[in-house]
Structures are given as structure tokens and as C-alpha cells.
């Protein structure tokens, strides 16, 4: 795998954004604890891509397995954003769904999903869409069984399309500055609504609207972390420890939170308007803030933390 030779394996130095899916899993878990299911040697590849004369990946762009995190057993899935933008295809989706269903019998301390995806793979759209639905159903079952499902988002492809929907069903989410969470991507919005509505080439706008800081400030993510594997590991441990209950009260609270959010911010033209309304003193300064200063800002915003999801 690219990068394995010369890249640092020191979790404190290894950039999550730069790392491959496999590097992330290995460096995130306790040393030597990763046991991969259906590894590349099994060659479970997409049956559809050859129809389009497209190259396949031996793991169909996702790493799944079992690992230890601080001594506790967890199940891990990591999408490879460098293969077809981490998109969901039939095998890719089946590996994730299978892992989640296995959690019901294996009873791990948590399931970690390392999102890095543009959504469903267009070449196998029906299978991909089905996989999204099955994944969300499986997450509901896992959470109902009392097992937290934690999403970690900070990869090159962001977390878009069906990935954004799945993220919404997780117990908790951690995101870095480079991470983006949304359903429709910037180009899709621009294509449908015009550049006046959303200029996808204005990357500062994209990040203000979908990026890690914005998601954290409005409570769309629960931890904002630096772009290192060790920061994501710490975030995962932290979030496993404070996963919310999964019951009717939680769902009703989430419904109420989303309704009030539209009411409060529905007329805002830019994320900075929302941040100002949330009580951030200098919204224009948020994008350039370093992690620590941003954490302090978040700590003063009441709505950023909730158990609703």
C-alpha cells in the first residue's frame, strides 16, 4: 500500500488526512492487535467494476477487523478514500454490514467506523444504496444492543452522500478540521442550485458550511480533534466512554433539536451568521483558529454538546 514504506508510523506524527485506511487502523489500535477480516489476500472484489473496464481493489476499498483499544476489544471498519473516493459498492457495503451484524454476537466495547467516502459508487448504485440502508439498520440494532458506534471523520474524501446519512445514525462522531460531513457534496449543490447559491470552488465556503469546525459548533459532531492518529484514538476512547442511551427519549430529543435548529438558523446566509447567533464572539476568526483556541470557543457554545443523536 502506498506510503507504508517511508511514512511515519508514530501515531503522534502520522496525519490522519494523509494516512491510508490500513495505516489509520494499525496506528489507531493497540500495537499488534489488529486482526483483519477478509483481508486483500482473500480478494473479495467488486463483481461490477469490470463491466465498466475499471480497476478493482483486492479489499474493495474498505478494511474491516477486530482490534484492541486500550485493552478493550473493538470492531473497526475503515474506508479507503483513495480507491474510488471511498465509495460504497456491493462488497464494500457487505463488509461493513457484516461487521456490524457480527457485533451483535461478538459484543465488542464499541464499533468504530473510520469514514472516508463520497457516498455510493455510481457504477453499482443499487447495491450501494441497499448497503447504505442495511448499514443504518444494522447500526440501529447494534446501538439497541447497548454497543456504541463511533464515527471518526478526517479523511480526504470527507463523509458525503450515504456516508453522511450513516454518520447521522452513529452514537458519537469525532471530526478534524480537514473532515467534512454532509449529504449532498459542494459540486452537486452547485449543479442543482447554481454557483450563486453555492460556489463549490470557494473552498473556504465549503469548509465553513460542511467542515469539521462548523459541524462541531452546531453539535453535528461531538469532538473536534487535531489531524493526528493519536488525537483520533484519544477521541474514540473518550466517546466510547460517554455514548448516549439509544431510546425513545433520545430520538425525540434529536427531533426537537433539529426542529429548533431550522427555526433558529434557517434564515442564515452563511455559517458565520450561525456562529454569531450561537454566541461566538469573532466568527470570522474561527476558520484560522488552532485546535486549542477552537476548543475554548466550543466550550462557550451551549448547543455544541447534547445527547440527542
Amino acid at each position, binding site marked *: 500500500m*502506498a*506510503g507504508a*514504506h*517511508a*511514512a*511515519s508510523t508514530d501515531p503522534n506524527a502520522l*496525519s490522519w*488526512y*494523509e494516512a491510508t485506511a490500513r495505516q489509520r487502523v494499525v496506528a489507531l489500535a493497540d500495537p499488534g492487535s489488529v486482526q483483519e477480516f477478509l483481508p486483500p489476500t482473500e480478494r473479495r472484489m467488486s463483481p461490477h467494476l469490470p463491466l465498466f473496464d475499471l480497476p478493482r481493489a483486492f479489499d474493495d476499498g474498505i478494511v474491516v477487523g477486530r482490534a484492541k483499544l486500550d485493552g478493550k476489544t473493538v470492531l473497526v471498519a475503515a474506508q479507503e478514500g483513495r480507491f474510488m473516493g471511498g465509495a460504497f459498492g456491493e462488497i464494500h457495503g457487505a463488509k461493513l454490514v457484516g461487521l456490524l451484524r457480527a457485533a451483535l454476537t461478538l459484543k465488542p466495547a464499541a464499533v468504530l467506523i473510520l469514514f472516508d467516502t463520497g457516498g455510493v459508487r455510481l457504477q453499482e448504485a443499487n447495491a450501494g444504496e441497499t448497503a447504505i440502508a442495511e448499514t443504518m439498520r444494522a447500526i440501529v440494532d447494534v446501538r439497541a444492543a447497548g454497543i456504541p458506534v463511533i464515527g471518526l471523520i478526517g479523511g*480526504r474524501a470527507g463523509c458525503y452522500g450515504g456516508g453522511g446519512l450513516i454518520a447521522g445514525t452513529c452514537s458519537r462522531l469525532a471530526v478534524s*478540521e*480537514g473532515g467534512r460531513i454532509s449529504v449532498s457534496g459542494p459540486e452537486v449543490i452547485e449543479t442543482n442550485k447554481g454557483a450563486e447559491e453555492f460556489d463549490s*470552488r*470557494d*473552498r*473556504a*465556503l*465549503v*469548509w465553513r458550511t460542511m*467542515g469539521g*469546525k462548523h459541524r462541531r459548533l452546531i453539535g453535528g459532531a461531538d469532538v473536534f480533534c487535531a489531524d493526528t492518529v493519536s488525537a483520533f484514538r484519544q477521541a474514540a476512547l473518550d466517546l466510547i466512554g460517554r455514548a448516549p442511551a439509544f431510546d425513545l427519549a433520545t430520538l425525540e430529543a434529536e427531533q426537537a433539536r433539529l426542529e429548533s435548529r431550522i427555526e433558529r438558523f434557517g434564515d442564515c446566509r452563511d455559517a458565520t451568521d450561525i456562529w454569531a447567533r450561537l454566541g461566538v464572539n469573532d466568527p470570522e476568526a474561527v*476558520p*484560522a483558529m488552532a485546535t486549542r483556541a477552537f476548543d475554548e470557543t466550543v466550550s462557550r457554545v451551549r448547543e455544541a454538546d447534547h445527547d440527542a443523536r
Partner: protein
Amino acid sequence: MTEWRGERQARDARIQAGRAHADGKVVPAGSVVDLLEAVLRPGDRVCLEGDNQKQADCLARGLAACDPGKVHDLHMVQSGIVLPEHLDVFETGIAKRLDYSYSGPQGARIAKMLYGGQIQLGAVHTYLELFARYFVDLTPHVALIAGVSADRDGNLYTGPNTEDTPTVVEATAFKNGVVIAQVNQIVDKVPRVDIPGDRIDFVVEADTPFYVEPLFTRDPAAMTETQILIAMMAIKGIYAEYGIRRLNHGIGFGTAAIELLLPTYGEKLGLKGQICTHWALNPHPTLIPAIESGWVQQVHCFGSEVGMDRYIRARPDIFFTGADGSLRSNRAFCQTAGLYACDMFIGATLQIDLMGHSSTITQSRVAGFGGAPNMGSDPHGRRHPSDAWMKAGREGQVVGDPALMRGRKLVVQLVETFGEKLVPTFVEKLDALELAKKIGLELAPVMIYADDVTHIVTEEGIANLLLCRDADEREQAIRGVAGYTDVGRGRDRAKVEELRARGVIRRPEDLGIEPLDADRALLAAKSIKDLVHWSGGLYEPPAKFRNW
């Protein structure tokens, strides 16, 4: 009785006519069309300033809005065909003839209009050629230029993007022409006088600040391991071997990767101070880590780069700055520096043929030349030696008296064997030839001619064309680094191995480079934000390059 002052009288009449729409020299933005219609005469040669960076866009809009009944058949002599208005004037009949240099974004439309006969083309030039012709036979009657600010006397502050302005004004103002400047604002006192007021006849306060394209910003996040491998080979196999200290870089990702490898890979090879000390180069954001690590002694610039102004201001030991602190760039001088004072040009291209001719023209686009052929050519007028230049000269000399040997500039093409969308870079025949035939160009638009190219670097290796002794060797040397393209697969294996044994072709392993070491971890900056950190927060990238 010979009339010796006809041009001067015509100029006075134009200015007189224009004054009706001005308060002194100052013209409100709303009166631009009136001013232009008063000053311009049918058939005038007009320089509408604009190149690959800044644009006199307010004046361009004004010119396009003129009445073709009053203003028509102009002969446009300008660096860049970049804005839609630059071509609109040919559709309405305001302009008829064109001599230009660069046409990046309008390349497809200009090809169509040339084919359709809407434009009578003089020639596509390099920047320096066009500037030279301003002083010989393409002297503008009217120049429409752009600056940051002016006072009411017309003293002009061009700002960091000085670029072509001094050259255009020199040719126009001193040969009975009229100079009209658009500025972002009229001030009581300009920060620095880039153009004295007696060379500026009218000043228009533009409705919006003039546009500048951030053409020289390359996002480290998009750099690939292949580009890093190519950059490593270039540094070890060319920069180090020839001891290149004075140079120019193109705008591609390959050269940007080299800039980012200097403080890491270059440092490891112990090359600091030995290479890359003096530059003719725009202020590339990707050069920041090398500057901050002490690699760079000085940089002269063609223009500025969006977001770099504060950083440049804080580094006057490196850049050319005025008493006011801001960058002073100058395209004509920097192009001359690139041509005569640099030992190497290294840049990318879209197509290379079997002899090494290269072109950025595809079947439907005329991109123009800009300045690359000035940098990427061996100047036969050079008379000063340097170690790098002499070494290249020795390698290239085949016959003749060694006592009469002269040096060679290194002209290096840095390409991946397959370009964007897996289009092969190496071809049997350049698309430029087909296009020249189609639209009737007398001269095929070749960016860099084969006899100027000294090295081609791809992910497969380096071909040193200086060491080739005949056309067949040259072809096999090029095929030998052309990878899995049809050209590459058509190689004579035995001949390529022989060339490799002679060091004409060198693979990564011949250079002691392990391809698996080509990792993004080697980049001194992996993102635009890293560049901001390197600059101590002084670099302010434009929104399109920010992922925060």
C-alpha cells in the same frame, strides 16, 4: 515640406477630445465608454493590459461596450487574451487584427474564431518578443493599463503586480501614444511612484479592483507520489550534478514538488547552499518552506501572487521591494533574467514528440506561449560562463575545437508519461502541427524546440539528450523514458539498455533512489495550511485554496 510632428499633433487632439470627459486627468468609471470613444480612432493599435496574472478588466469592459460605429477595426497588441471581453471586441468589429502572447482560459474560443476568420492574426509571440515589437513595429497608439492607485496628477502605484505596465507605458508614452490607467482608488499621495504622472494621460477610478489570477499557487495536498519521485530524480540527477544555483521553475506540480522537497530531501543530500540560491520566479507559495529554511538568497519576480504580499513585505532580503515595502515585479526584466541569467529552466508540458519538440497545444485549443519559450531556450547571445553552463556545454559538444566551446543552458522537461485523464504525454506527432494546418498558421506553435531541450524527466527515469550523438539515439532516449505509452512501448530494448549503460538514460535505481521512498511524508508542507504555518501566518491564501 515634411511634417515631423504629425503624430504629436494627433496625440494632442486625442487628449483634447478625452479631456471633455475628465476632471483634469481623472475620469469616473461611468464615463469610460465616452472617454474611449473620444480617444480611439479606427484602425488604432491598442494595448489592453492583461497577461496570465493581472487584468485591466474595467477598461476591457469599457472597450467592449464602445459603439462599433465609432470604434472599429482596432489592432490589438497585448500580452494576454484572457477575459471574454478580449474576444468579444472581435465579434462586434471593434477589433480586427491581433498580435498576442498568451491565451490560457480563452484558448478554445480563440481557436474557433481564428478558424472562422473573425480574427486576423499577426502572430502568437512570447512575452519578450511582443514587448520587443512594441518598440519596433507594434507601438501602441493607445495603452489601457491597470494599477492599484494614482494621484490626481497621474502618478501611478502599480502595487506588487507591476508586471507589464512599465514596458507598455514606455513604448506608448514616449512615442506619441495615449496612456489610460484604471486604478482601484484615487489617493492624495501614492505609496510609491511606479510610473511618473507625466506618462499617464487619464486615470479611471474603476468600479471594482482589477482582477488577478492566482496562477502560481499549487496545493501541496494534491501532490502525488509519482510527482515526488520525479522531483527526487530531478534534484539528485540534475540539480545536484550540475550545481544549479540560478534558475526558473514552471508552474506545474512537478516543480512545486521540487520546491517542497528542498528542505527535506535536498537537506538530506547536503545540497543547501549548493543549489537553488538565486531565482527568476514568481513568489510561489510552495517556495516558502525553502526560503524559511535558508535555501534561497534572492528572487526576482514577473508578477506577484495572490495572498503573498504580506509575506514578501516581511522578507525584503529575499524579494525586490520598493521603499514602501511592497514587491516590485517586472515581467520584461524577469523574462530577460530568465533568458540570460539562469542556468536552467525546468517545467512541464502536454506533448513531447520523438525528437523532443514540445507543445501545450491540443487539437482545439491555442494556449499561446507566455514566457516559457524565453526561459526554455538556449540564448545564443550569452557570453558569461558558469560551472553548470560549461558542464552542459561540454556534454553537448560533438565536434569542433574545444577551445571554442561554449556553454549550454539546461532546459528540462518534467512530465509524467501519462497526463490528466491518462492522455499520453509522448506522441509521434504534435497536435500543434494539425492545428497549424487547420487554422492556417505559418509557424507551427511549438513551445520548446527539440534543439533547446537538454533533459526529459519522467517517473521512469532521466533522458540526457545532450549525450545523444544522433537522431536515432535521441529518439530511443526519449522512448526509453516514455513508460507504457505507445511511444515508450515502441522502444528498441537493446539500444535503450546501451544508452542506459552510457548514462544517457538513468533509472531511479541508477541514481540510488528507491521509488518506495517517494512518499508525501517528504513534502515540507502537505497542505496550504502548512504553508501558512511556515510563513508565520503571513501568507494569506485565497478562498479557493483554503480547506478550513
